């Protein structure tokens, strides 16, 4: 018993003694560490590199999905054509029966089958006063009376429910996701069932009333227009299950009018097909008269819009359609410029990783061509930088930027498949090696376009993805072949029709863009506090955080040799930021084209860097 007490006392004493000692910041040993090369009071080097040349400066179109977007675009403005696409699933006989209640002729606005569209005033009101965004929307239709819209329709009929869902899924992907023209949608080659599907094409023209469309003194416009040819097609055969695809495009491509109709929202404002005549569209019953686009997902309706440029703007940052600005920074140039500023650099270490400096902060400022930049209503844009460069060495990890050049001649509808890429096992969630195949197709139905089709070796029965492209266009495509990392393939067909350059990249990094409040230390959340990162028309520069991209540019020795790095400047969101309302983002998508001045063909940026010396291993 005595022994136990002594042991307990000793242990308790130790515990108390240890707990009483204070640890904390200290300096003891600093001199020794410096002697050993572990320098702890390194200065942070603050450098600004002026007139830094950017290489491979260009922009490419990104395939942005607008499926289910609340606000759609329809019209033609600033060299961009906007078309809408809607899909309906008709499986209730009650709708078809109602077609007999009225017989509408062409031009009869109160026909038995009508397309209804809503045009809310997206700008909103501040009390009784319209917000600037709404005032601007009024201006966009000033001087216009109407917009003629071509409505192409494809109806698919199936006498039974067999495979109906499969048909819908296939067409939905081709028509809504990939935005293939109706007449270029092909059916799977492996089934005669698909080719036996009953398909009917029809074309109608509707005239949207535009005069005073967004007038703040008038109620929101809901318009219904007859589709007589589609009506005839539906009445010709009373098949139990029908899938109706509508492709809306402005008739005249030279008008300067862009409407923002309601998109993927149900009831009242949302687009719908009205079956039967003589009733108010807003009061139509959704169980027998008003057929709304079906839900593709739990929240997204099968409504989308797509944008096509009249001409390539391959040196402009774009919003609607989204054009991402691409450029590279030459590593040797960066090192030379840093060396010039510092009066020399430490010797470069051996190996693939340059461990001389850590970059805690990097920012690239791009000059704006204020004369050529066009952004609707001079809205500001929130921009972000994506650094498409992984930090890993090619020998240890395949997640690198590599290029693959492939010469393909456009082939017939049944193409030859070329191996594009072997997807390495490390890229695959399932740890499998797979092969990505590509085919370059010249469709018989339309010789003005090309189709790139992608497949996985593991699943040759269907396309993994496809891309429609015109010769000379430059497009981006995101592929997700069941891998953990999204593959992105860039197609560059500018030099020659058949000369394609694909880029495989992974682990792209969106640069952190948060700005902290010096008072609280927390990131700002109000847009009015974030203006230093915005692209504001009239300002001569736009500055974007690029820490990780610059970090990797400096640290990766093989850049420009085994590796390629790329910066991608992108507009965040599709709305603009209204300077007159403390940079509130507009509800509706805006158009804009931002240009950058080139001197002797080269755009030059300003690079702000913090450099922190690293200890050599």
């Amino acid at each position, binding site marked *: 018993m005595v*022994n*136990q007490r*002594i*042991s*307990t006392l*000793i*242990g*308790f004493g*130790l*515990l108390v003694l*240890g707990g009483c*000692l*204070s*640890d*904390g*910041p*200290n*300096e*003891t*040993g*600093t*001199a*020794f*560490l*410096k*002697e*050993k090369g*572990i320098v*702890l*009071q390194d200065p*942070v080097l*603050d450098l600004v590199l002026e007139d830094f040349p950017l290489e491979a400066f260009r922009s490419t179109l990104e395939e942005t999905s607008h499926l289910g977007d609340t606000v759609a675009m329809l019209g033609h403005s600033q060299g961009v054509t906007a078309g809408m696409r809607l899909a309906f699933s008709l499986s209730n006989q009650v709708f078809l029966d109602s077609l007999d209640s009225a017989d509408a002729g062409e031009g009869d606005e109160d026909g038995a089958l009508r397309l209804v569209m809503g045009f809310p005033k997206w700008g909103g009101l501040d009390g009784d006063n319209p917000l600037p965004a709404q005032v601007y929307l009024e201006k966009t239709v000033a001087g216009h009376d109407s917009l003629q819209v071509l409505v192409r329709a494809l109806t698919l009929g199936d006498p039974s429910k067999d495979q109906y869902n499969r048909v819908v899924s296939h067409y939905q992907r081709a028509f809504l996701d990939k935005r293939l023209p109706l007449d270029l949608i092909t059916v799977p080659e492996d089934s005669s069932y698909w080719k036996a599907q009953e398909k009917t094409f029809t074309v109608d023209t509707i005239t949207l009333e535009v005069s005073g469309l967004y007038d703040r003194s008038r109620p929101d416009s809901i318009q219904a227009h007859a589709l007589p040819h589609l009506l005839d097609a539906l009445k010709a055969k009373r098949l139990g299950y029908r899938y109706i695809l509508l492709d809306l495009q402005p008739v005249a491509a030279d008008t300067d009018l862009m409407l923002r109709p309601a998109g993927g929202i149900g009831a009242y404002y949302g687009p719908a097909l009205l079956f039967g005549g003589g009733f108010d569209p807003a009061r139509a019953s959704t169980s027998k008269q008003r057929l709304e686009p079906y839900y593709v997902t739990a929240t997204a309706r099968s409504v989308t819009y797509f944008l096509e440029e009249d001409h390539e703007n391959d040196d402009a940052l774009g919003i609607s359609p989204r054009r991402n600005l691409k450029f590279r920074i030459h590593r040797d140039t960066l090192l030379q410029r840093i060396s010039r500023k510092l009066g020399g650099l430490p010797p470069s270490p051996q*190996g*693939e*990783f340059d*461990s001389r400096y*850590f970059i*805690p*902060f990097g920012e690239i400022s791009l000059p704006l061509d204020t004369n050529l930049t066009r952004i609707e209503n001079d809205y500001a844009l929130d921009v972000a930088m994506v650094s498409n460069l992984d*930090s*890993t060495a090619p020998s*240890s990890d395949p997640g690198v930027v590599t290029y693959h050049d492939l010469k393909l001649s456009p082939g017939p509808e049944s193409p030859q498949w070329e191996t594009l890429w072997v997807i390495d096992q490390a890229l695959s969630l399932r740890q499998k090696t797979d092969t990505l195949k590509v085919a370059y197709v010249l469709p018989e139905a339309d010789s003005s376009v090309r189709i790139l089709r992608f497949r996985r070796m593991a699943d040759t029965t269907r396309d993994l993805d496809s891309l429609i492209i015109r010769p000379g266009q430059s497009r981006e495509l995101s592929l997700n072949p069941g891998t953990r990392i999204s593959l992105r393939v860039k197609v560059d067909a500018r030099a020659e029709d058949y000369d394609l350059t694909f880029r495989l990249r992974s682990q792209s990094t969106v640069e*952190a863009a*948060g*700005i*902290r409040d*010096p*008072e609280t*230390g927390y990131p700002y959340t109000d847009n009015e506090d974030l203006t*230093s990162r915005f692209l504001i028309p009239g300002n001569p520069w736009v500055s974007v955080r690029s*820490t*990780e991209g610059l*970090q*990797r540019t400096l*640290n990766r020795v093989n850049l420009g040799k085994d590796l390629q790095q790329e910066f991608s400047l992108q507009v965040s969101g599709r709305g603009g930021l209204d300077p007159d309302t403390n940079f509130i983002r507009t509800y509706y998508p805006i158009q804009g084209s931002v240009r950058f001045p080139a001197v002797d063909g080269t755009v030059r940026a300003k690079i*702000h860097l*913090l450099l922190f010396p*690293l*200890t050599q*291993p």
Partner: protein
Amino acid sequence: MKSAFIIPLALAARLWADFSPLDVNANGIGTLSAPLGARERAMGNSGLASTPATGVSQANPSRLAFQDKHSFTGTLETTLEYLHDDDFGNRRSDAFLPGLTLAFPTQKFGALGLWYWQTAHRNFTLEPAARNGVRQSFFAEGGLFELGAAYSYAFNPYLAVGVDIRKLLGRERFIKTADFNRDPSDPAYYNSRSLAGDTLQRDLDGLRQGVSLTFRQKFWNAAIAVQTGSYLDLDESRHITGITTGITGSQEIYLPWQGTVALALKPKNNHTVTLDLNYAGWDEAQGEGLNPGMGIGIGYEKQGSKSPYDAFLKRCAWRAGGGYESLYLESSWQGYATVGLGLPLGVRGHSLDIALLGGHRELGGNSFVAEEYLKLSLTVQGVGVWGQPARRRK
């Protein structure tokens, strides 16, 4: 008895910073932890030739052959340090559990010993005050751990031989951090990304062997123990915040041989005087700034009475000693004095050994670093006689 285990374990869970120039120096293996229990610690880090000790001695496994009881030992160390250099001073403390041993003597077939021991450790933190809004720090952490097995055999009551094999596993990390975003007046610094760690990690793996002899006489004992030099596989990798560096490397490093010569004199019954000489063959070939490490330890022990009927204090062992070591890092040395106590725990031979060591450690040369330290060691021993019939009460 139970509390004697719980408290050391609770203490071991708290790891505080420790300083030694050896911890920081990437050459070598850090600060060495003498493979001695609290008994030998109390005798000036000597006593390897002294045979009344119970338990496995990793430094001299041969003396295990003279024991007849199975035993378990667990050792805890805690150190209080006052560290100072030319400009600054600081107090620190650390605690760790350096070793556990198991001894299995047999009647006729020699004895088997097993142990885990932390032979070296790095545990260093330097966090200077922030300058120009940048706060930096440096950490060295990890250690070299040994799993050992020894067999010893006594040819006669005077001579025992031991052979052993040791598996060495180590992990060390040297971490440099820098926190830049402390200055709200500068937007670039304030919104910068901190260097959470520029980390160099070293993983060590290897084997080494040892042989030892103990001579036992009535009035003196002598022992010699040698551990061979061996090559350790060293894998290095470097990690930097948010960046995969791909910097890796494999090489071998040489852990030099080391040896001990020990003498124990028994001028009177229950009195022992000990002298140990140690040598480790470090030199420049193993790393810049390294030289042979050597030390001398002298100790005294008055053993306690074995009779359970004597007073408690009479049953305690009393110890004292001192020593000097020239450390394997150039221009570094340490000197110390020790006192200790062996407390019996019950009548079966269990005990708690306590050692208190006061020392001065110093690195001379261009940058002077010195420390005064107080080290408290505790070793708990549990003994038993397994495989034999229990004595029956009449």
